[in-house]
């Protein structure tokens, strides 16, 4: 039970980190200001926590959409 709390908070922190990070503007502003390209990790190479966090993130996004449609 205690382990679940730790695990769940870890997953939550990963999800919050990815959901709260603002998306980089795709328009490049010159060679100097170009942001470093973020490499997307393939699902097979993700850690277990990352894989679970990905699922949780998708569920939360879907929930937000459904709640917005409802109201």
């Amino acid at each position, binding site marked *: *039970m205690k*382990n*679940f*709390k730790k*695990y*769940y908070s870890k*997953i939550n922190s990963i999800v919050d980190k990815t959901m709260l990070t603002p998306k980089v503007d795709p328009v490049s502003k010159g060679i100097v200001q170009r942001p470093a390209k973020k490499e997307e990790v393939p*699902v097979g190479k993700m850690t*277990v926590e990352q*894989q*679970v966090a990905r*699922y*949780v993130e998708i*569920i*939360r996004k*879907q*929930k*937000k959409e*459904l*709640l917005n449609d*409802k109201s």
Partner: protein
Amino acid sequence: MINPEEFLEAPIPGMSLTTEPGNSPWEQPPQLVTLQEVADYYINNLTEDQEAIDKVLDAIEAGAPLQILANAVITFNMMKGIHTIDVGFLVMPIIVEMFITLAELNDIQYFITPEDSLKGKVLNRDLVEKIVNSSEAKTEEALQSLAPVSKGLMSKGNM
């Protein structure tokens, strides 16, 4: 001391050896192995099976903590030989998140852990966000509606 009635309800030593070993579903290789397979199985079940959804919602409404519910669901499927206990524990946050979604879509109060239910604490993020946003909007409105303060003798206000 153990209650004599409870003591008599316990299985007799060696009772587990009276059946043929390997016949129970949990003694067979699991049907689903990877985390992805198990997660998809639960997501499909909790979005398509209306009977299961109704049962879950009834339990949440009765005040059962989501963690306990998820644990029960995992144990049940583990006994059916769907997956192993370790993968079940790994997907537990996904099941809890599905329960949260179901509860919020149906406007049902929920508790994630048993400790939360004892404290009466509800972790509803969207509700908190709504409250914060509405209070911010009200504060801005109040600030804008304030009358301009006079700044000297020449700027006399309306008599």
